[in-house]
């Protein structure tokens, strides 16, 4: 089976400062892979590079095809979607319009089923239906995250990348978001999940990487990582305090 996504020797620099160094990472089809690590480790940089928002050196293959040359928009059209850390919503536009635009890549390819797709998203997030006509900029943090997720789903992604979906959200909403992530996996979507909330991430993931100072420090099946004393001490102990 070819991997959904495979990165080798990935390097990204901001000017002269290298933020990612020789990163290798694989997302097998239909699995949840998580990348955990402290603030500033390079997690957001990694996702931006995979999505084509930052120029990167090295190899990135998506379903066996090299995409390292492709601009972001074409990666979206191929089935990659990113829910960015900053959400990047269209604040002065309505929730309904934000969702519709989520389907823009498919619309450009000729799909005309945006309304049906949006109805599916509303089923998954009834809260968004209640807020359909409200401007995205007026939503609460949890609603904004749901909208960002819903907008990404409108693209019908095969590989969904999430950058700290739990950031700044109340525990109850974090739970809901993670339940939805697992539900997406059950639908066959492959997922690359970046989290500081290592406990929650390792609970739902199949495989995990630990990113520290721009390099992969450790990797393994999520269950093993959760038992690893170093991980327990550095990341899981901390999460307990939340």
């Amino acid at each position, binding site marked *: 089976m070819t991997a959904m996504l495979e990165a080798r020797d990935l390097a990204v620099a901001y000017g002269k400062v290298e933020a990612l160094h020789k990163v290798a990472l694989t997302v097998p089809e239909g699995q949840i892979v998580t990348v955990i690590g402290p603030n500033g480790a390079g997690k957001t940089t990694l996702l931006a590079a995979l999505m084509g928002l930052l120029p990167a050196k090295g190899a990135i293959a998506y379903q066996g095809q090299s995409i390292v040359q492709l601009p972001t928009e074409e990666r979206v059209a191929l089935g990659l979607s990113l829910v960015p850390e900053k959400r990047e919503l269209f604040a002065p536009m309505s929730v309904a319009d934000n969702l519709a*635009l989520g389907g823009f890549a498919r619309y450009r390819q000729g799909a005309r089923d945006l309304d049906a797709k949006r109805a599916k998203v509303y089923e998954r997030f009834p809260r968004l239906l209640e807020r359909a006509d409200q401007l995205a900029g007026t939503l609460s943090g949890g609603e904004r995250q749901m909208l960002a997720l819903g907008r990404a789903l409108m693209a019908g992604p095969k590989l969904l990348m999430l950058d700290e979906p739990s950031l700044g959200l109340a525990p109850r909403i974090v739970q809901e978001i993670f339940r939805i992530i697992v539900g997406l996996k059950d639908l066959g979507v492959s997922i690359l999940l970046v989290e500081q909330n290592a406990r929650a991430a390792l609970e739902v993931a199949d495989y995990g990487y630990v990113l520290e100072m721009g390099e992969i420090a450790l990797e393994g099946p999520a269950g093993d990582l959760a038992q690893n004393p170093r991980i327990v001490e550095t990341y899981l102990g901390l999460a307990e305090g939340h």
Partner: protein
Amino acid sequence: MNFDIALLLIQDGIVNGALYALLALALLLVFAVSRVMFVAQGEFVTFGALSLAVLQQGSMPGTVWLLLILGGLAFLADLAVAWKTKRWEGLRGSALLNLALPILLGGLAYWLAPLKPPLAVQVILAVALVVPLGPIVYRLAFQPLANASVLVLLFVAVAVHYALLGLGLLFFGAEGWRTPAFTSFRVSVGPMLVSGQSLLVIGSSAVLILLLTLFFNRTLWGKALRATAVNRVGARLVGIRTEAAGRLAFALTALFGALSGVLISPITTIYYDTGFLIALKGFVGTAIGAMVSYPIAALGALFVGLLESFASFEASALKEVIVFSLLIPVLLWRSLKTHHVGEEEEE
């Protein structure tokens, strides 16, 4: 000044103001999507007006040559990029837009011009010859500078303005043109005699503004333009190509520019450099709207039209001075009232 004259001046002001409003909206759209303060917008006005005037003489307008030359350059630019990146997929679209379309339109103009077709056909042809210049100019001048600052983009826009001005002089010559009125229809509204041309300008502007509003609010492409304007990264993440949005915005601005030119050509004598001053007044409307508000930009442009009309009656030699200097307090007031919109808005 008596009441009748005041009414006449108001009519004049509204007619010009309606055209400035069209230009103000187009300028704002381009700025929001591409961050370019497109001071060369006026050349589209000129080209629209002069193309119509030349077509009415039964000749093929110089716009055809402009289109063929600039389109050819744009295609070469795309070819060079394709060569360098070894990615050829985009080239077919580029050939269609930059080569096939200009040749098709040029052929049409060459064939139709001597036949002196009905006015409506001439107007459509004149406008159609100008519209592709929008995306072509965007491709040549602004697309390679997607990450440049607003100031650099403004300098480039000024350079584009002078380049197009020179080309306009080359292809249309230095003499002024005025087209006959579209209609000799007149109607009296109360004590006022309103010309059909005035009604046509006001009506067309209103319809165009309505259509633009519908486009922004009802179509996914219109929403995509707004999305690009408010959050470029977000737009890219849903698959909206910044270049495609830029092309569309410039096509719309060329369309609005050319239509304004066609509408104004029976009212004002147009020289190769007249468009600049016209568009500048639209630009003042945009500035009154603080480069962000569409309704205020349109109202501001209307206000500029009225101001200009009264100024030209009171002291016609000084009218431009009066218009531009009376606007300074307005702009000061607006800039104190509104927050400055920076390069990129952070959430």
